[in-house]
């Protein structure tokens, strides 16, 4: 089956679980006037052709450019994914900037993504495109080429990041429609704000950056049942 609409041979797919994207969208919705960022968890094929994003850990909305909180968070998330029985690792980075009209990978984002790429050379980056997100949230039909998450992959040289085909991002479960229904419901019901990131955790360790409550909400909302 075809991944891309361009004639170039597309060698990569980035499949994302609904749960991962829900958490990302809640994080962005909770802090609409800030930049938010986080890490992507999941698996990558040895040759980097299939990336599976199964979860995200929201990092910051206040401390994105600060090195100490970033290092501490990454160390702990890595410790988490290294536990016996873990079937995922850190495979990438996301951010959402409230102000920029077109999706860009900011210098801060590049630095963090570069760091992650040291351990996982096939890391990917997802940047939330605000214009496409607005269309998505208003119910406009989603195609492979206008879904709201702009993917970036490593340059062939190994230094720097380039935009990948928008259509390389797809859903591992459910549909774009069911994703919209879920996130709209969470926003209407004000439940999006239960998402906790590392800034919240550093201010109050009881706030869990694994967001088990949000994971539970995600499980009940099956596509077609809303």
């Amino acid at each position, binding site marked *: 089956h075809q991944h891309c609409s361009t004639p170039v041979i597309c060698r990569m797919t980035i499949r994302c679980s609904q749960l991962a994207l829900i958490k990302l969208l809640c994080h962005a*919705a*909770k*802090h*609409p*006037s*800030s*930049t938010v960022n986080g890490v992507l968890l999941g698996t990558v094929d040895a040759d980097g052709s299939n990336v599976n994003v199964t979860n995200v850990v929201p990092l910051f909305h206040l*401390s994105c*450019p*600060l*090195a*100490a*909180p970033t*290092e*501490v968070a990454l*160390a*702990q998330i890595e*410790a*988490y994914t290294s*536990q016996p029985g873990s079937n995922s690792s850190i495979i990438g980075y996301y951010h959402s900037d409230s*102000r*920029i009209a077109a999706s860009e990978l900011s*210098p*801060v984002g590049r630095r963090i993504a570069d760091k992650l790429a040291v351990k996982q050379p096939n890391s990917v980056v997802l940047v939330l495109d605000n214009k496409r997100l607005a269309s998505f949230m208003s119910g406009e039909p989603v195609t492979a080429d206008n879904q709201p998450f702009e993917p970036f992959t490593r340059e062939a040289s190994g230094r720097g990041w380039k935009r990948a085909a928008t259509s390389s991002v797809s859903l591992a479960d459910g549909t774009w429609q069911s994703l919209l229904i879920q996130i709209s419901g969470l*926003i209407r*019901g*004000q*439940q*999006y*704000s239960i998402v906790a990131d590392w800034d919240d*955790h*550093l*201010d*109050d*360790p*009881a706030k*869990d950056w694994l967001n088990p409550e949000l994971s539970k909400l995600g499980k009940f909302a099956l596509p077609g049942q809303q």
Partner: protein
Amino acid sequence: GMASSEELEQVSLQLRKGGRDRELLRVFMRMGRELRLKDAHAHTVYGAELLAKHSASLPVEEVWALHEQVATAALSIGSIQYGASLIRAVAKEFPDSMRAARLKGMYWEAQGELDQAEQLYKDMLAEQPSCVMAAKRLVALEKTRGNLQGAADQLRKYVDIWCNDREAWEELAEIYLELAMYKQACFCYEELITLAPTYVPFLVRYADVLYTLGGSHLTLARTYYSKAVEISGGRSVRALWGLVACFTHITDKATLQDAKTRALIELPAQVAKALQGHYTTAAPSKLPLVIGLLEAIVT
């Protein structure tokens, strides 16, 4: 007294569960004003309900404060028509006020009419050169235009005059951080610490910026994280983790010479103990992860 973030959590939780009585809504909106919160969705939704259902029974000053608060929130989430309706009501009631003018300017900004907004704010300043509201909107305008350097320049001019305005210094620091101008951000935090020498969040953030600069700034970062730990009575988890980060980078060992160096040598173990205490109480599921990381700094 001022609401705490724990009280806000409580109220938010009740509202999410469906409680919508007048007093709960009032308390939430009041806390939003006091704590200058940014949860624009919640403020729009709950504020709109309060105004729609309970205006008649609220004190007049509160109704107009709500108009301003909800209009601002509504504009920021894109509910422009609703925001505009509130602004029209304010403008009708207070026709020549700076507050109404500022709201009108924000409406123009939300509509993307930035030049129009800029002219309005400049007119406000022409009429009242000390109008803080207008000066600050001009800064916000530059941010909206994506002109962070311009915003920093405007704000720098502002703090040259209003040098005791904590919020302005904080905002300037944030803009500098976004521009990766860490030394300038440090300068802002030094001013803020002068204004509020025992306010832990400033000490921590100053240390955070110093740490980000790295190199020769690490020992000063360690000093400020330590100060934050001390003043917060060991409660600042951010400061404790900041110290852990410092310990992993500052490799030169202090030699035991005096009380000061003794304190420095004993610090990693104390920090590890304090963090373990926090996680045992508040986040036991994360304790195994934390212990692994702390072992590295204590050896």
